[in-house]
């Protein structure tokens, strides 16, 4: 038996997982349309490559990853792009984003695909393939996988494959592990090879015995890969918590797990990595649990872009559904409407009704009972953070580690005063971010202003230098011209004129060669000083 570690707190909400694991993963018919957002991942939005009216093949790249952190977007099936425009997307913000609308032609006509041997394929090539295949973390974080496979300064010793799936209702990873264990394990092989890791630990909560058995069977011939049953305890499937339970390592907020020698991937991500590398299959679909207030809760292999209302209809959505939740009941977001489409982050759609999720009773004052602190997996003092967030004492909130909060919702879940604690923390965080942005903007403006002041001062200085040089030249000319009063008068008159017109004096016609040489010397020096001033200005 492997030694398991313990993380602080945690809660045991009713799991409600059984209803959606009774039948295998189903493939629904093609939806009437697909709405595919160009920004489904962490990082920059993919650059659209198609226009309305274009015909696209299944798997065709329609959104090119931008430089840096970004990922690709593909046509989930073959058909015609009818619109590129702003539409409301499935995201906590509820704001519209750029989407491609695709009307399927029903042919499922694929682009050309190649088969690769993941064992011999160069590692750089693998990262490139994953980037262009739009592979992102499917546990909900949607972080581009190619970026996670770049490693860090430190050697990654351990890969954690996250099959814990601690959120109630969600069973997509459970079903994937039951039905496609081999491909997950092969994905684990690729990850291990790319990062040069020593071992792969597959953490699965002990309420999924079938998934554990299938995964164990799939990696039985791999000495470096182990399936470990972890206690069922929410949020044991949080990356930090699972890493802690499996390795004893605590990855603090703001620290990369690779700096501690660990990298964590969701099992569904591992599966997609294998499909992308071995079969050139981009991320076109994902397993989605459709459950809650539906007649037949089930898991579906859903094309990215499928409208939620069509998806829920296949599971038999009941008429008294009030809204839909994307994700689980602990951390999920209420969708702005049911016309939004399934995105890569969408692991579960719960049809909500007042019977399933009764509205919270009115919030009472905090009585400092610290039930929240007892369950906080990040070992924070939620009652203090609540107090600071409520009084808008954001500095204190940061001092009390507000940004270590992973928003798992365990504190709100146990609060006897029914205070929406996580909402207070989200509010405080967004206020701090907004203020930070304001401060940055102000700093920039100040810097710009200061530079402008400096520039004006510098130009003034340059002008003064020029003038000084001119006067010096004039003085030298005057001293070097004992020729005649007439000549001196001429020079003086010319100088005055030049001063008036601010042009270089050119009255060098009746000077001796000696004088001319002296003047040339001065001119050269002036040119020199001008050049210096200019080069100063340039720096």
């Amino acid at each position: 038996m492997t030694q398991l570690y313990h993380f602080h707190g945690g809660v045991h909400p009713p799991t409600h997982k059984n209803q959606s694991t009774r039948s295998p993963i189903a493939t629904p018919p093609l939806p009437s349309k697909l709405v595919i957002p160009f920004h489904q991942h962490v990082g920059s939005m993919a650059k659209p490559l198609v226009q309305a009216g274009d015909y696209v093949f299944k798997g065709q790249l329609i959104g090119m990853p931008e430089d840096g952190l970004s990922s690709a977007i593909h046509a989930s099936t073959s058909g015609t792009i009818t619109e590129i425009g702003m539409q409301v997307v499935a995201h906590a913000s509820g704001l519209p984003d750029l989407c491609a609308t695709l009307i399927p032609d029903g042919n499922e006509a694929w682009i050309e695909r190649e088969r690769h041997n993941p064992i011999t394929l160069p590692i750089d090539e693998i990262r490139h393939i994953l980037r262009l295949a739009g592979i992102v973390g499917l546990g909900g974080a949607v972080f581009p996988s190619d970026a996670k496979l770049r490693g860090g300064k430190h050697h990654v010793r351990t890969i954690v494959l996250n099959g814990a799936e601690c959120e109630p209702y969600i069973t997509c990873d459970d079903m994937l592990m039951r039905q496609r264990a081999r491909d997950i394990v092969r994905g684990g092989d690729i990850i291990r090879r790319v990062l040069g890791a020593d071992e792969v630990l597959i953490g699965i909560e002990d309420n999924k015995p079938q998934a554990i058995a299938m995964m164990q069977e799939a990696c039985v011939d791999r000495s470096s890969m182990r399936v470990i049953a972890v206690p069922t305890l929410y949020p044991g499937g949080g990356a930090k918590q699972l890493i802690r339970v499996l390795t004893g390592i605590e990855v603090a907020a703001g620290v990369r797990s690779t700096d501690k020698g660990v990298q964590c991937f969701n099992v569904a991500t591992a599966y997609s990595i294998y499909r992308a590398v071995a079969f050139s299959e981009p991320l076109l679909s994902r397993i989605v649990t459709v459950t809650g207030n539906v007649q037949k809760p089930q898991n579906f292999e859903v094309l990215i872009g499928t409208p939620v209302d069509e998806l829920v209809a296949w599971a038999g959505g009941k008429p008294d559904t009030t809204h839909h939740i994307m994700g689980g009941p602990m951390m999920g977001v209420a969708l702005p409407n049911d016309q939004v489409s399934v995105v890569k982050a969408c692991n579960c759609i719960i049809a909500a009704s007042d019977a399933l999720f009764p509205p919270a009773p009115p919030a009472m004052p905090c009585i400092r009972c610290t039930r929240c602190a007892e369950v906080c997996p990040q070992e924070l003092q939620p009652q203090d953070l609540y107090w600071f967030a409520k009084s808008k004492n954001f500095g204190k909130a940061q001092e009390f580690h507000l940004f270590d909060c992973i928003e798992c919702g365990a504190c709100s879940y146990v609060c006897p005063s029914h205070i929406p604690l996580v909402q207070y923390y989200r509010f405080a965080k967004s206020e701090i971010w907004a203020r930070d942005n304001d401060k940055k903007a102000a700093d920039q403006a100040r810097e710009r202003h200061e530079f402008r002041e400096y520039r004006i001062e510098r130009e003034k200085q340059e002008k003064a230098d020029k003038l000084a040089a001119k006067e010096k030249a004039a003085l030298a000319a005057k001293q070097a011209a004992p020729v005649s009063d007439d000549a001196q008068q001429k020079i003086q008159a010319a100088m005055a004129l030049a001063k008036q017109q601010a042009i270089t004096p050119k009255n060098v016609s009746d000077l001796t060669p000696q004088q001319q040489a002296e003047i040339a010397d001065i001119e050269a020096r002036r040119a020199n000083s001008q050049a210096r001033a200019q080069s100063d200005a340039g720096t």
Partner: protein
Amino acid sequence: MFYSPFIRKPISVSQIMLRVMLALIPAIGAYLYYFGPIILVSLTLASITAVATEAAMLKLRKRPVAPFLQDNSALLTAWLIALSIPALAPWWLVVVGTVFAIVIAKQLYGGLGNNPFNPAMIAYAVLIISFPTHMTHWLTPAMLVHADLGFAGQLAYMFGDVLPQNMTLDAVTMATPLDTLKTQLHLGTAISSIFGQPIFGALAGHGSEMVAVGFLVGGVYLWATSIISWHLPVAYLGTLFMIASIFNAIDPAHYAPPLFHLFSGAAMMGAFFILTDPVTSPTTHKGKLIFAAGAAFLTYVIRVFGGFPDGMAFATLLMNICVPLIDLYTQPKVFGKKEQAR
């Protein structure tokens, strides 16, 4: 409800308060058995006063009345007040205490969750300073009673301030064991002979020691059902036990044995029902230990060297003052940041 989490554990402030009241029942039972039914009268009187005062204050403060009355916190305060003052007292004593607790100690600070001091202990402190004689009229336990006032007689005294002819208050009440100990020690009597007096039982005072056992039983129930954590009661009783043991070991003739301190006065009630008031105690584990140990130390000092027979109330209030400071300096290290902070 559009923000996660969409589910909640079925628990409420009102249920928690109710559970704590439920846990008071063993002690009330012991009280009933040894001192008669008059305690039920003072419990009822305090309850009615507390609810009426709370409602009036909420109305004045323009707060919703119904949800706050349903939180049961006023009722719990009322019960704790009734249990901490003599049951055979004029009706206005418990009323004054309860009104003061609800109006001054709780609502004027902002109501539930905002009071820095334990309201029941504020009530006790106000009463013992303002009406010291009335606060010494503790009923004599049933087995020691020479002159039985009877329930009707008790009611007549409580509401009409009349006693039957040929009966004095001293005949039906007595000094508490802590009080007796203090007076006798002043007179130079040794502990061994003081404890030979009939009012002393196996652990502490006859009757009152069983009420303390009742509080202990209720407290264990609260711990077992996770309403309270072990930190406060264990640190309080442990520290009190230790200090009393040390003094008792040094000079057994002048310092009472530790168990006497644990089962006398308000120690047991305080450990499980007063210090554990979450609003007025620290939130961190370490802070709870410091808070309770400090309260135990002060209790002992006041009992043994101070002017009052018991020190629980003042010890609690003094430690209540320190709570923000204790919390600030006992912040635990958060996840992943333990080794770097040295």
